[in-house]
């Protein structure tokens, strides 16, 4: 079999009405910046796996192999007006859009489920553990932008980016989301990382028909299926999708064909369901080396500059580690504080009892 990333592409997204503001052909600075992000994300991901082995965090869901998909998608987001709805594996997107990574990692340290980062300020919704759980939120949020624009007589819309996996595409909610989005003409981009696996189940046993992008046509939604290990291809496809949605033309499905090179999570054992040979063939060339080769070929960067960036990334990962080590538990009282905006007498009494019995005050 060929690497997954080379799967037949599909592109039904019409050309932009207005030329894209972001140039399709990225300049050298942007290319180097993309590499910097890829490298940082790679190092941080490897670091987080190590932290788990060291007992610093109880678990982690690695995104090894999905760096190009996540950095490419994240780089197309305008965080002043768009909003990202991640799953539990979008560390690379979080990094790229500027989420504080110590606060992000707090969820993996089991400190706070949604993460300690400020979702509103960063336009990056809380960490989501329900597969497919937040896809509809993106639709609702995006429809809100349409309503806002209507009353403000604006034309450029904020875009909701719903992240989902190949496995998530099986959930009824994802279907409802695509149908609602198309009916409401909501400015949403459904960004599917088809990484070949949902834990132990390969895409072939998951996605009947073989492609989430191919389903878009059934809703009258344009779609792009793209090599998810080519950061520039992902960036450009996402930019086009965002521009389409921003212009009020409705939702778009982007399916980035990539590969989950690591285990599903730090408690998974892929050896039970796939061989190392499979991994090698299906995974194809590492997205970072591919991008490095490209930059080298284009004389945009050289080995020394890569080494420098990689070293900086390593250092940044170390700093984040320090931050994660320093993260302390949240006080138990916060269990009660954040249930409601306006607490209730019952909850107040429970909080008091908890204080007396557990804090002995």
């Amino acid at each position, binding site marked *: 079999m060929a690497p997954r990333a080379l799967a037949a592409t599909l592109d039904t997204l019409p050309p932009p009405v207005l030329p894209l503001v972001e140039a399709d052909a990225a300049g050298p600075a942007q290319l180097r910046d993309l590499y910097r992000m890829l490298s940082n994300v790679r190092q941080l991901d490897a670091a987080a796996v190590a932290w788990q082995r060291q007992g610093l965090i109880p678990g982690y869901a690695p995104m090894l192999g999905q760096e190009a998909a996540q950095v490419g998608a994240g780089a197309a987001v305008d965080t002043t007006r768009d909003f990202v709805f991640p799953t539990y594996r979008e560390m690379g997107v979080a990094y790229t859009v500027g989420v504080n990574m110590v606060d992000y990692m707090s969820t993996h340290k089991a400190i706070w489920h949604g993460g300690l980062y400020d979702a509103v300020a960063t336009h990056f919704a809380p960490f989501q553990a329900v597969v497919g759980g937040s896809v509809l939120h993106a639709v609702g949020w995006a429809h*809100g932008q349409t309503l806002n624009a209507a009353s403000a007589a604006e034309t450029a819309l904020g875009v909701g980016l719903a992240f989902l996996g190949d496995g998530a595409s099986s959930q009824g909610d994802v279907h409802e989301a695509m149908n609602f989005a198309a009916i409401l003409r909501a400015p949403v981009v459904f960004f599917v990382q088809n990484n070949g696996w949902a834990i132990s189940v390969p895409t072939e046993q998951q996605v009947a028909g073989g492609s989430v992008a191919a389903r878009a046509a059934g809703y009258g939604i344009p779609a792009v299926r793209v090599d998810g290990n080519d950061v520039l291809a992902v960036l450009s496809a996402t930019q086009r999708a965002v521009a389409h949605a921003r212009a009020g033309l409705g939702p778009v499905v982007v399916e980035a064909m990539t590969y989950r090179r690591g285990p599903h999570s730090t408690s998974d054992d892929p050896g039970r369901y796939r061989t190392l040979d499979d991994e090698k063939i299906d995974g194809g060339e590492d997205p970072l080396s591919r991008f490095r080769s490209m930059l080298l070929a284009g004389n945009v960067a050289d080995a020394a500059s890569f080494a420098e960036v990689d070293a900086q990334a390593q250092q940044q990962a170390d700093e984040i580690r320090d931050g994660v080590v320093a993260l302390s538990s949240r006080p138990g009282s916060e269990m009660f504080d954040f249930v409601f905006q306006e607490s209730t007498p019952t909850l107040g009494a429970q909080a008091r009892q908890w204080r007396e019995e557990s804090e002995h005050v």
Partner: protein
Amino acid sequence: MSNALQNDTLESDRELASTPLVQLSMQQAINRALGEILEADDRALIFGEDVGLLGGVFRVTDGLQQRFGANRVFDTPLAESGILGTAIGLAMAGFHPIPEIQFDGFAYPAVNQIITQLARMNYRSRGTLPMPVTLRVPSFGGIRAPEHHGESLESLFAHVPGLKVVSPSNPQQAYHLLKHAASMPDPVIFMEPKARYWNKADVNLTDNRTGGAVDSASVEGSVIARPGKHATLIAWGAMVSRCLQVAELAAEDGIELEVLDLRWLKPIDEAGLAASVSRTRRAIVVHEGPHTAGLGAEVAALVSQSCFDSLRAPVERVTGFDVPYPSGDLEDEYIPNIDRILFGVQRVLEYRRG
């Protein structure tokens, strides 16, 4: 949070010259409240199945799309999880969604979004993404409808941390509780007793106790729908009026039953419950939903705890049976009827320690 005397049915209210009383059915009262909510709050949105042109299958949203436009009041595709998920996203975008689920039994497809998302977003986001969503659910049985059109979901909802749950028993309450719920920054499940939609009663559009603004006692906690001293009947939704009938009948035999309309099913007015039952020393809780793990269990547990010393008999639960809600023809066998409630009353009154 302790209970106030329910005022809408008392003769004395009518005498207050300044109070603007109108006769409304509950369906009209809710429709009116919705109109005022949309009027006052331009972030409020109504959506669901058939709520637009049709005005909802119960006509509760009648005329609202015509009045406020299809951006404010709109039909969605037929998918309840989609409706709730969209509501959550709209709330994240700063709107105040007031979605409708067409019938109680069709809230089940939305349970995942309600429990794992709606109820937890404020918590998950550490208070930065509040969920001011008022979910209207025509609820309970009594209208001889097809399967799944007569369910009681209060015990399911009340168990979910992060939700508040309320059910009005008459037009006055429906009007004020809905306006109050819609003003709250937290998700509220608003359970409308569909069997009572068409019963008319006086509604005081302002609030008669304070001669103007609505005071908290009129929208918070429980209310005593009828004072009494021999036992307390505890009910909500359509069972309140049935309990009032029972109290009427019992009064003919000299038995004075207090009827406590619980209203808020989460949070439960524990102080109000305790106050009533510690006076009457006997309690019967009445609800339509199945018996086991019904909300009556919570009420009975609370009362048994708070009134342990004063209770003279075990708390009785007169409820639906542990059977699927039956077809219309057997509905009257299933929903607590006057006889069955009276048997329950008799048991608490005749109880003697063995």
